[in-house]
């Protein structure tokens, strides 16, 4: 029987903007199995990124139940959420968010610094992560010296270096051309396959989701309107 990686029911995230309440996520209920590759699609403002932030423990729900790898996130305080982010999830962003003054190696090393891994243990782990994304030769380059595709590879290596159970990717190909997009999607697909990694990828590119994901979930106005296997 397949384990459940993510389970949420009646999940809500509302923001108050003056007199208005924005219902970014409005009663989402879903289950994602371990090792499943799920694509979340929808128009701008449909709540895709907010849902990803909730699952990533970056944001907290207004109400509802959210469980990731057996941990109830709605019951965790901010410190426990930080420790959850440190160990359970890896996040890849559309804008890469690499530290510009640090080399590829140093960027990938960051999560291990937070995990108090000693320098002697960090070195081979970071090198293996860079090798996996094909950037061993570019380890000492600054982000500004790398192409957009390479920068996203570094970001993926950084997300994967701590061996998370769940990879959250927020528009990972949003800033890339077609060729680089395909390479990144292949890389993520490979990680999903080889490591039985649960992947939740937010994308406005439905074609990309169809090519890579096992299932597509469509959000509209903060609600799940479609969940279909591909």
């Amino acid at each position, binding site marked *: 029987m397949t384990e459940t990686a993510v389970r949420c029911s009646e999940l809500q995230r509302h923001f108050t903007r003056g007199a208005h309440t924005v219902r970014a996520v409005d009663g989402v209920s879903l289950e994602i199995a371990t090792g499943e590759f799920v694509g979340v699609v929808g128009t701008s403002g449909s709540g895709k990124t907010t849902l990803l932030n909730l699952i990533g423990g970056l944001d907290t729900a207004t109400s509802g139940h959210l469980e990731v790898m057996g941990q109830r996130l709605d019951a965790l305080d901010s410190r426990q959420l930080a*420790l959850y982010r440190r160990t359970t999830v890896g996040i890849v962003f559309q804008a890469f968010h690499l530290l510009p*003054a640090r080399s590829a190696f140093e960027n990938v090393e960051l999560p291990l610094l937070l995990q108090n891994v000693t320098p002697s243990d960090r070195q081979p782990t970071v090198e293996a992560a860079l090798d996996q994304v094909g950037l061993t030769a570019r380890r000492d380059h600054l982000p500004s010296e790398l192409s957009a595709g390479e920068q996203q590879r570094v970001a993926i290596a950084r997300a994967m270096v701590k061996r998370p159970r769940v990879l959250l990717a927020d528009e990972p190909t949003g800033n890339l051309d077609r060729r680089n997009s395909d390479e990144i999607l292949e890389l993520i697909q490979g990680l999903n396959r080889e490591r039985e990694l649960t992947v939740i990828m937010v994308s406005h590119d439905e074609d990309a989701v169809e090519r890579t994901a096992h299932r597509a979930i469509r959000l509209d106005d903060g609600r799940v309107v479609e969940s279909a296997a591909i």
Partner: protein
Amino acid sequence: MIFRDQFRYAFSNLRKTRLRTALTAAGVAIGIGAMTSMVSVGAGTQRNVLTAFNEQFLLTSVMVRPSERDSAEAERPALDSAAIAAFRDLPGVRAAYPVVAVPGLLLDQGNRLFRNLEGMPAWLLGEQIERGRVELVAGRAYREGETNALVLSERAAGRLLSDSVSPDTLVGRTVSFMVAQGSGDSEDAARTGPERGPADFIRQFAPTTLELTVVGIVKGGGTLADFVGLSLWVPLATVEPLYARAFQDLESILTGEVQGDGYAMVQVLTDGVMAVRPTQDSLEARGFTAQSILDEIKEVRRAFVIMNGLLAMIGGVSLTVAAMMIVNTLVMAVLERTNEIGLLKSMGATDADVMRLFLTEAGVIGILGGVGGLVLGYAVARITNAIANFQFQRVGEVSIDLVAFSFWIIVGGLGFALFVSLVAGVYPARRAARVDPVVALRHF
């Protein structure tokens, strides 16, 4: 994050903004430099004054008397040889000896002088001559173990002899000292008033004569407190046997009461003026009355505290400005690195991790500024010293070292720089810790 990584991370962040970090650290350096240079000059001045004070016999001594409190006689501790031995064991005490003075007549070939014959330990007399407080005019000081030797002041010798005779001629001569002694009979002493008849008085007033050899003539060499005066000094062992039964004053003659066992006063010499107060406290805790001349000049110590406080405050103003620079630098860093903070949080950094990171950066600025400040402070203090000594030489004064750049100033300067930097870093660090990762990653 382990501390080494945290330190390296903070250091590399500061290196990215070298100029800003250098200017902020320079601000701290100026503050610490101002503070340490002023405090070191203040401490040096204090040290020089205290050294001068410490060489003064009167300023470092405590006079001990039996308690004057209204307690029963039996409860008052005796000021005797055992008590003096205990005083010598007190911390900060270098010597304790009884003040023994017996009034009497010094007689020499028909000349006479009524004065107190004072007991002074041979080592103390030697020390006073060595320090220049007492100057030998003729002869020598008496030595340890020597008895019945007299050293008298030039003025006392002049009073004793006729004007035409040089005081030097007394050296080597044997003179007499006549003391009025009591019988030591307690019944005699008990008979006072009408019951005490002339016969009692005469019987008691039994003069005792002491033969003394004049070994030296001295005069005062000090300027602060000339305690030579008309003194007649003999070794303690010479005068102590007379002391217990000698009449001290007119009252004791009329009442027949003599000192008896114990002493009326004991002089305790301390290691320095700073040891006087604690010694006084210890002696008073033991039930004695302890007084020192330093009681009268405690304002001097207060003045030093105020002076050092004022000097440190001037440095403190600079350091306050430096602290504001640190706050400004780090707040700028928080604003510039909001994205980085958000990213670190997305990777699992806790609020405390982020706060520690910025406090470490503040601490690194503080240490850099502190080290620079100590170098600057030392240089400024040395320059101040050179300028002051140049002025001293111009007006014919001797050169002195005005600077006391002690280990504690170094430790204190560095510690204070670190402390101020960390305090200044608290606000930016808390601000960084409060950054919402969602907002930081979306907008920066």
